[in-house]
């Protein structure tokens, strides 16, 4: 008997292993299917890199001009005019491909640059290859020779901000006044010190102190001309801001610099609590509105039946016909409630 049991256990173990093996095979097949997709994606991603190489000016406009000018003075990063004369191209190519590595490597010139940009490390531009870096150096060299480069920077008016500009800027920020080229209003992702209600969006940072952070209207203007972050670039690439819009927004941002940032954590807790309260109130309200809603059929039936039996026992069985039925049927009541039966 014991032997047979053992045999059975072993057999079932074997079949388990077989099943596990089958599962593994299935998993491998699934993995292979999954792998095909990223491989294809990789292939397609490489093709456009070569094609874009001819669009170096566009690439420069999209990735560089928010921190650099060519002959327009310093923004966050230095003016690139004649940069090819200041450093040799190998150094520049190396820096472009990985600025942080160069800085961390203890390069003295790079450290100086970092100081100049007040600690902002230059990011690696998307799709930066050696070929691309060479193209950019060529472009900078060519543009530096020109009297007036197309990358001289934005001409944001220098006149002082008026209250009127600030009001206009606020309207643009909140979307009361739509952006001319159809861009998304700032407050869908950002908040400011004086937005009422639940404030602005929380996808992007609070912009109350942005004027100070980006060091004035010139670099702010350059940023707004071609926003470079992964989130903003696709949105504003096809809907750029107008120069006067940038001016008005700068005016608004400038006014924010005098205030402190909104305490977002407090805001969020309030928001959460409010949400909980509203949810609880809704549930409570629903419960009242659908008081007579459908609960169950069988359980109430059984409970009502039992109640009648008990009361039937006490009242002598003439409360309802069911109770008297029970008396006729005899033993059922005794079984159900032996304690009550007298």
């Amino acid at each position, binding site marked *: 008997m014991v032997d047979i049991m053992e045999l059975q256990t072993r057999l079932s173990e074997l079949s388990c292993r077989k099943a596990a093996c089958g599962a593994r095979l299935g998993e491998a097949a699934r993995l292979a299917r999954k792998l095909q997709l990223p491989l294809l994606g990789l292939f397609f991603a490489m093709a456009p890199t070569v094609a874009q190489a001819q669009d170096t000016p566009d690439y420069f406009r999209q990735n560089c001009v928010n921190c650099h000018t060519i002959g327009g003075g310093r923004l966050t990063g230095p003016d690139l005019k004649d940069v090819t004369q200041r450093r040799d191209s190998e150094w520049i190519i190396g820096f472009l491909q990985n600025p942080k590595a160069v800085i961390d490597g203890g390069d003295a010139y790079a450290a100086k640059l970092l100081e100049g940009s007040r600690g902002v490390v230059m990011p690696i531009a998307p799709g930066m290859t050696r070929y691309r870096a060479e193209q950019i150096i060529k472009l900078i060299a060519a543009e530096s020779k020109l009297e007036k480069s197309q990358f001289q920077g934005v001409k944001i008016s220098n006149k002082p901000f008026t209250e009127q500009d600030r009001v206009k800027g606020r309207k643009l920020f909140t979307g009361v006044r739509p952006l001319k080229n159809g861009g998304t209003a700032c407050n869908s992702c950002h908040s400011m010190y004086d937005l009422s209600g639940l404030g602005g969006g929380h996808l992007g940072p609070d912009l109350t102190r942005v004027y100070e952070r980006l060091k004035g209207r010139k670099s702010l203007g350059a940023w707004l001309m071609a926003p470079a972050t992964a989130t903003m670039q696709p949105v504003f690439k096809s809907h750029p801001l107008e120069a006067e819009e940038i001016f008005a927004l700068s005016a608004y941002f400038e006014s924010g610099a005098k205030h402190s940032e909104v305490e977002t954590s407090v805001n969020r807790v309030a928001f959460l609590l409010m949400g909980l309260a509203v949810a609880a109130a809704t549930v409570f309200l629903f419960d009242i509105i659908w008081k007579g809603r459908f609960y169950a*059929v*069988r359980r109430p039936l059984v409970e009502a*039946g039992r109640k009648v*039996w008990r009361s039937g026992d006490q009242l002598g069985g003439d409360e309802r016909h069911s109770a008297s*039925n029970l008396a*006729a049927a005899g033993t059922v009541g005794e079984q159900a409630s032996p304690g009550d039966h007298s």
Partner: protein
Amino acid sequence: MVFHLDKCIGCHTCSVACKNVWTDRKGAEYMWWNNVETKPGTGFPTKWEDQEKYQGGFETNGDGKLKIKSTSKAQIVPNIFHNPHMPSMDDYYEPWTYDYQNLFNAPEGADQPTAEPISMIDGEKIDVQSGPNWDDDLGGSPIYAENDPNLAGLTDQQRLQLSSVERLVFFYLPRICNHCLNPCCVASCPSGALYKRGEDGIVLIDQQKCRAWRSCVAACPYKKTYFNWFTGKSEKCILCFPRLETGQAPACFHSCVGRIRYLGVLLYDAERLEEVAKLPDDELVEGQRSMILDPFDPEIIAEAKKNGISDGVIQAAQNSPVYRFVMEWKIALPPHIEFRTLPMLFYVPPMSPVQASKAEDTITHNSDKLFHDIDDSRVPMKFLANLFGAGHEGVVRYALAKQKAVRWHRRAETVGDIDRETADRMLREADCTREQADAIYELTSLCTYEDRFVIPPMHREQAIEMMKDPHEHREEVGFGFVGGPRRGL
């Protein structure tokens, strides 16, 4: 479909056959596409006939339109996350099995180990509170039988008699999906997953289109669509269409011990559907009969052929036992036609023992009235009328009287203790001829497999042709699902 209740012995073989073939799966444990109920009783799920609770079926509203009780275009949105009026697990039952392993694994002790019931939902030990046929044979009748919705309209005395000793009575009601002409489940589905197959009228749920709204569960007044909690799709009786397509009777029909089930083709005029479904309650039974067409009428045969119905199907309609029960003899009746889904499953109402009359100290079972045992039968006529006649006794009495007359006719023929004259008088009064009585007797008592199940050639290829190019179809189909239906899209 016809179920001859006078022959049903309540053995549940049909239910078990169906369970073994179709619903012995995870998520389907609680489903009984076929179940057998004891009447009076509350059935499965509990009190399914009570539409004030479950809101199933159609109703006619003020402006003469047919409206689904459980839902509407406006109600779908507020009920999007929760469909009210759904039977809960307790109204069905929590499916359970027994801990058989304990019989082998229990440590040595003074007592015999037992196999305790464990839930099939969570595997925990449960205290079984109800089951799919909990009120079988009047079990727990002070709770269940007394709450049978069909008892409405009965006098207190009649109710009392139903459960008193020596007058107690019950009969069985086997139920499957009625494959209605006007299926409420199909009408209610927001995903369009349910459909009534054109070639044979089987109502099916497309497992790939079903989006788990469960509108069909709420809408079906017979509670014959079930939600599979594991796959997240609704399921229902499929009338064993894979068997039908190969010329076999459905599992429950085939396995029926009492041979109570009949299957055959009925031709009907689908264009009159809405008009009939809106008739007042007392005209519904006749209305549905008027939709069913005579397969011997040359005009109808010509029209059917024009509509692409093959000769084989027309021939099957002419040999259909269902047509004879429902249309020629009019002794089979639809259940609860007042739900207005026009069910296509018909029941021959059961005869029941006669109510004894007590004169002084003698109890007699005889009376001078010819049909006294119908009028005084233990199951009150009103009860059967609620079940099969939308509350009206006429059609039920007709069906029972004819059955009674057939019995007396056969008794006069074979036993001879009843004189021929009385038997003929009964036949006359029951609107029956000797030939018809013999035919009823034969199809009821001497029927063979071929008599009971006249399955037409299904011609799937023609049915597919109606929808798309068969060559295209052949390229698209395989062995069914890869991996089976599951939750999600």
